[in-house]
């Protein structure tokens, strides 16, 4: 688990040092076209761009890391409440010396966030109201207080131009050098905390009762995490805005949750996704005048989540659908091979090809269906088609698969009749299903149990392992050579 963390610790340090240039505010770039703006963005010459990008990336890392714990602790909506609750703190911080002093706003917002968390805790423990109600209540009330204060500030002569309203939806271009330094400090703090207290966070998140029985102070760890989350929310305010910060905590982490089964990889992926979303938002809000950054960051995060949701290798919806489809296609192919084998077997393996008509009759389907199936076999290199696709020859690979399927089927039938005392006419349907999923080892074990018997309950020969490996029509057995001419 160490590698991803060490690696990620480097990023904020690099960013913070690289962008230690002079600050310049955006504003004079409003007339340039989208393409020009995009070019400007990617040359990184504009300090505003560098500041915005560095800031959004830093907050992406912090929110991603802490958000992972938020998601696995099922506290997603606590993050939401906390992020709305900081608004009055932002206003207080601003009132402290009537300017957007990052430190004052940071302190004010953190205090407000923690007050909000405490209020939720109090309401839950002293009333019958449930957690969701308490969260919604605190969220909206604190937000309303914040809105009251903001409208009062904007009425003031100095307040009007302060840009404090940018805290609602975020404007990455407004990130200054002071903000950036604060962000770097918090990011390093978050990464260090997660690295140093990884096992404490892990065990309390997974099983808090057990953690307490080991002597961990779960409340301290919980509130420590809440404090870090409050920090993360506050540094994200400037770029993402109060309303949408919770998305940065939840969405990248949820996307990572879909992609991995290990906490440390989830933390790493989530931080990466947060960075990507941050950069995405910084870029798009840079393209046009007056575009807020927050919603674009959220869209970036949602895009990542959607990709994980649809295409994730394990849990992706489309991936699972494809897997299911390819499985049913495989079963379909194997059944066709088996039918070809049966046709040839009925002819005592005289001749090497099967006509489409024979196949269709055997499978009781139309010629057209048989043609589609034979083409599928050809596509997978299991058969070759001749005479305009009317004659099907099995390739060595096709023979191998056909023999092993028939072998699985007949061994299973024999096993059920011999070992499990099923009647011989009751075993076919079950064998139809299991023949596609039996593994090599199981088949060999069954064969051993059955003492290498070579006839199924219906008296048909069971292809041997040699037959399967040879990749051709099975040879007649020595002891029952009657009626089975070799085709080779």
């Amino acid at each position, binding site marked *: 688990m160490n590698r991803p963390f060490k690696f990620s610790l480097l990023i904020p340090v690099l960013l913070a040092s690289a962008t230690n240039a002079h600050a310049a505010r955006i504003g004079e770039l409003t007339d340039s076209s989208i393409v020009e703006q995009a070019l400007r963005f990617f040359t990184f010459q504009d300090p505003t761009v560098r500041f915005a990008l560095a800031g959004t990336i830093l907050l992406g890392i912090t929110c991603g890391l802490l958000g992972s714990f938020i998601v696995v602790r099922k506290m997603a909506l606590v993050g939401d409440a906390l992020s709305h609750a900081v608004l009055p703190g932002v206003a207080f911080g601003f009132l402290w010396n009537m300017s957007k002093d990052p430190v004052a706003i940071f302190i004010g917002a953190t205090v407000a966030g923690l007050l909000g968390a405490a209020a939720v805790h109090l309401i839950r423990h002293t009333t019958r109201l449930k957690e969701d*109600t308490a969260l919604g209540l605190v969220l909206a009330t604190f937000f309303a207080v914040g809105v009251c204060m903001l*409208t009062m500030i904007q*009425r003031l002569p100095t307040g009007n131009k302060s840009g404090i309203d940018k805290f609602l939806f975020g404007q990455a271009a407004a990130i200054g050098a002071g903000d950036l330094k604060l962000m770097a400090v918090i990011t390093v703090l978050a990464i260090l905390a997660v690295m140093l207290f990884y096992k404490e966070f892990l065990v309390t998140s997974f099983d808090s009762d057990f953690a307490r029985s080991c002597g961990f102070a779960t409340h301290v760890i919980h509130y420590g995490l809440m404090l870090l989350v409050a920090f993360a929310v506050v540094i994200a305010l400037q770029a993402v805005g109060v*309303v949408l910060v919770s*998305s940065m905590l939840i*969405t990248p982490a949820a996307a990572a*949750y879909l992609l991995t089964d290990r906490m440390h990889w989830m933390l790493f992926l989530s931080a990466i996704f947060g960075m990507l979303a941050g950069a995405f938002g910084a870029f798009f809000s840079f393209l046009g005048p007056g575009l807020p950054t927050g919603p674009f960051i959220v869209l970036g995060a949602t895009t990542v989540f959607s990709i994980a*949701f649809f295409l994730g290798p394990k849990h992706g919806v489309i991936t699972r659908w494809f897997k299911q489809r390819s499985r049913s296609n495989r079963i379909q192919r194997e059944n066709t091979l088996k039918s070809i084998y049966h046709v040839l077997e009925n002819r005592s393996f005289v001749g090497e090809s099967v006509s489409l008509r024979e196949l269709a009759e055997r499978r009781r389907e139309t010629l057209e269906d048989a043609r589609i199936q034979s083409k599928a076999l050809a596509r997978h290199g299991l058969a070759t088609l001749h005479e305009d696709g009317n004659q099907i020859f099995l390739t060595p690979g096709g023979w191998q698969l056909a023999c092993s399927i028939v072998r699985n089927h007949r061994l299973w039938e024999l096993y059920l009749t011999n070992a499990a005392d099923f009647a011989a006419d009751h075993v076919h349907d079950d064998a139809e299903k299991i023949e596609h999923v039996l593994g090599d080892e199981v088949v060999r074990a069954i064969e051993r149990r059955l003492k290498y018997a070579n006839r199924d309950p219906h008296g048909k020969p069971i292809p041997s392992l040699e037959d399967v490996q040879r990749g051709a029509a099975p040879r007649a057995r020595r002891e029952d050579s009657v009626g089975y001419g070799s085709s080779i």
Partner: protein
Amino acid sequence: MTQLIPAFDFHQVIVAPWSQDAAGTFPIVLMGFLVGAACGLVGTFLILRRMALVGDAISHSVLPGIAIAFLLTNSRGTLPMFIGALAAGIVTTLLIEIIHRKTRVKQDAAIGIAFTSLFAVGVILISLYASKIDLDQECVLYGEIGFIGLEEGITLGGINFSPQLIRMASVTLVVAALILIFYKELLVSSFDPALAFSVGINASVVHYSLMCVLSAVVVSAFESVGAILVIAMLILPGATGSLLSQRLPRVMGLAVLHAAMSSVMGLHLATWLDCSIAASMVVMGAFLFAFAWIFSPSQGIIQRFIRSKPKLDEPPADLPAAEKSAVG
């Protein structure tokens, strides 16, 4: 600081709004009351069903519905707005369901993902088509209840009832009527879905109907209080009511009372501090909640404090008999 908080002038703050500017004040207070009452009635059921945060989600995600309705019809008509909001509300509910069902992401995270994404789409649409959509970002957040009464409508007794006001009044009445008619279904399916199923109430129909009503209420409240303060309007009245009573009809009555009181008090607070009226109403609503929280005769903090220590000198009556000496 004196610039920020004006001196409290009793006449200016308490009397003047009603004596000098009644025609301006009354529609605002009435609107605040109607929004609070409609939201409070629906919100009581949300609280009961532990869906307060689904309310939060829907109140955010009606925004893209409204924005798209604006863009498509180029008007601020009532019908397109309602349809847009309903669609957005249902999309949100479905999205939450799908994310929660199809993956191992838990419901809380699913709610968070769904509403932030939709809200972001809404904000982007508004800022991209700022010239076409008659909404600004701040209005989205805390509404413009002060301008509600300005449009010409029906004048009664010297007071102008603007179309918005009339619309909100009809929504409130419809909500109250629906709750009255379907009270039994709502109650049963909220308390015990299994029982509801056994007496033939389709819980998911009730669920989605409630979501539709919620979307309708949220969208009609949207103009006056914005997307986020709506949450307060949804939760505060019901929460305050349930602190004071345990019986549902009484809780709903208290919720309506709460809406009226916070509306009036909020107006005066906003007059005094000269800040957002809708936010002030919420702040006063929260004040009322805190008041109930502290002084409630049945579950208030003070009451709790008085009865804090249980009497544990005597064993409880239903304790099984046992020979103490048998204890090892």
